[in-house]
């Protein structure tokens, strides 16, 4: 807790510093020209950040709203994939639970969240996304699915259960732009 507080304090201090340094800059001479707000800082802009409480939640909002998926949400944010999950789609997301991430070898998640591993992380996450919107029953018609990272994954039916890439679907939530299937494992992309 202590270190956490300290870091947050340092963080807040840094932010304050930047704001202050902004304000201290002299104004440019021409103030009548309207400033554009659309700057190079577009990373956290886009459909993911529109306030809309009227529509059925999209696949990203469902994940954000689920305490069981905080690791997935963190990973999506670290890989800058928010805007890809709020698109018209249709998108089918296989959402591993926190437990599924915890089952990975120690330090794996921590390593993946490092900025230098952003591409690897994005590839793994995109392997959990299909352009489509199929219920669990409908999925039984498939042998394979083409995933957003350009690789295929398998669909297997065992009894009443459906496994995608070896991960079992344990719940399904319809979304405004597709469907979220909660899975019990992280689906690792086949090596290329």
């Amino acid at each position, binding site marked *: 807790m202590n*270190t*956490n507080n300290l*870091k*947050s304090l*340092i*963080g*807040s201090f*840094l*932010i304050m510093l*930047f*704001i202050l*340094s*902004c304000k201290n*800059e002299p104004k*440019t001479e*021409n103030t009548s*020209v*309207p*400033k*554009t707000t*659309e*700057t*190079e*800082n*577009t*990373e*956290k*802009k*886009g*459909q993911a950040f*529109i*306030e*809309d409480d009227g529509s059925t939640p999209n696949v990203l909002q469902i994940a954000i709203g689920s305490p069981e998926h*905080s*690791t997935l949400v*963190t990973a999506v944010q*670290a890989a800058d994939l928010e*805007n*890809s999950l709020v*698109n*018209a*789609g249709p*998108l089918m997301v296989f959402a591993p639970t926190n437990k599924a991430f915890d089952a990975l070898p120690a330090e794996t*998640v*921590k390593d993946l*969240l490092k900025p230098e591993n952003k*591409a690897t992380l*994005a590839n793994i996450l*995109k392997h959990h996304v299909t*352009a*489509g919107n*199929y219920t669990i029953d409908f999925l039984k*018609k*498939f042998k394979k699915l*083409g995933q*957003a*990272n*350009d690789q295929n994954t398998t669909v297997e039916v065992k009894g009443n259960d459906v496994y995608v890439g070896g991960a079992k679907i344990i719940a399904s939530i319809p979304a405004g732009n597709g469907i979220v299937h909660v899975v019990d494992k992280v689906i690792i992309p086949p090596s290329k």
Partner: protein
Amino acid sequence: MKKYNYYLLTLIGAAALLSSCGNQNGGGKSSNGALSSSAAEKVYVAPGEQDEFYAFMSGGYSGNLTVYGLPSGRMFKEIPVFSQFPTSGYGYSEETKPMLNTSFGFVPWDDAHHPDISQTKGVLDGRWIFINGNNTPRIAKIDLTTFETTEIIEIPNSAGNHSSSFITENTEYVVAGTRFSVPVPQRDMPINEYKGNFKGALSFISVAPDDGKLNLEFQIMMPGFNYDLSHPGRGKSHGWFFFTTYNTEEANSLLEVNASQNDKDFIAAINWKKVEEYVKNGGGEKMPANYAHNVYDEHTHTATSTMKKEVITVDPTKIPGAVFFLPTPKSPHGCDVDPSGEYIIGNGKLSADLTVHSFDNMIAAIEGKKFDGEAYGIPILKFEDVLAGTVKSGGLGPLHTEFDGKGNAYTTFFISSEVVKWKLGTWEVLDRKPTFYSVGHLMIPGGNSAKPYGKYVVAMNKITKDRYLPTGPELEHSAQLYDITGDKMELIYDFPTHGEPHYAAGIPAELLSSKSKKIYRLTENKHPYAVLSPDKARVERNGKEVHVYMSMIRSHFTPDNIEGIKVGDKVYFHITNHEQDFDVPHGFAMIGQNTSELLIMPGQTKTSLWEPKKEGIWPFYCTDFCSALHQEMQGYVRVSAANSNVPLTYTLGE
């Protein structure tokens, strides 16, 4: 985890502040300099100044074509094409009703998709712009001196006219491919017998070099795939045409699953010069058909519709060397050819990567007969033999590509909602910018010709959401304008567009503006019901049909009092605008009339039908605020009982 997250977020936040801070102050290098004040300057066209480019945007489900200026994003005109347009009376006036005639009868609407401007030697010449009607297959030609639709030809044996209307580099042909394959000829058969039985027609419509008259020369009857988009070869590949296909599985239901089974579909490469020669030498089969050809005459101000009864169909397997398939991954959508004619780009819409084929490789593979089997007798080339390279973009859902003429290409990504700039030849990604939101087509003026004007790219988005002030559930689509003169694209403007723009075509303003017609010459008016001087104005009865030969000028109609009209008559108002002054149209509307108004340009004649149902005195008036005495520009018609003896009279000022 949680500690880690917090720290990460703080850093991101701090970084965001740092960059926005720099932007606000305009410090730093190029990217900052282009922002804030200079983005506004770049799109600002001062009052009285004119834009640099025309942009013609398809109106999608409006059925029309809209004309914008770049960089201002101001809309200048909506040109009615496939849809009735009450603003001008297009499709309502007697003269223009024939424009919307088809083999299905009068069809007052269509889904307009891909405008393309005429070219000479691969360079935009600005004579005409063509656009396809997707739903009831049609191709329209719009004259770029009058900005009016002057010809529409229906495409038989076609359905979902989507891989259209792209032109060859000297406007020899405007090409129209079918998205939906269908039985040819149409017949009653089970849907699930599609496979192997349906056909995909690729139609080549010639454009007469002098007056642009259209003629359906031949249709190539391809296997029953979906032909999605197309573009012509240019330069060394002139004489070829390339079509993306999907649903090579030939599925007839749940295509979202069943048409995504094959890892690769095809780009069909058509050597149309070979097919043309074959047809010229008597090849092909004459097949009975029924399709409308509607032509508007600028001098009679009247359209005529002719039903054509025959079409030449060509079996591609009978012409050696005319058609080949290039395997292309993942249901390719866009099919674009670079300005040199060497690279053919197919974007698998379910892929992350772009596939670029080489024309030279294709020719070498054909000459070396390196085939990888065949489909319905059409040779398939080996993917590895024709491939020039793959662009590993990291985006999702690539759709369409345009070119800047400086060796760069720009591709839209629907799912990841961005435009990606990459280098031809090295396939290296140079830049990427988000679009707001979910972009379909993009347009660089001349971006699909041998000579692009690579100053701006317009991204045409499918989703608008929060970009503008909300207007309820239904929103206009958004477009974003990027300056592409630097190494990095710069978003400089955002504006709403009308209908659903699919593709667009842009052209430097100076190529069109000086040729734009200002008035129609009254002395050249050959309309059979025109009144060329007011003393010829009259009313004639022929049984229950009444013809009013009327003239109009600021600020009265001649005649403006008409008596002797009876309930049950069909009254045709043939109205000639006698103004010969730029931008002085007059309008005409009659109370209770079951049609739209007319908007009549100087020197033009238009006709409106009125079928009076009630006795009384019924006014008509000018609907366009034409002059200081516009409110005085009105008239009355006296309608008597069907059996009355009121004599037919017409007067002005009595």
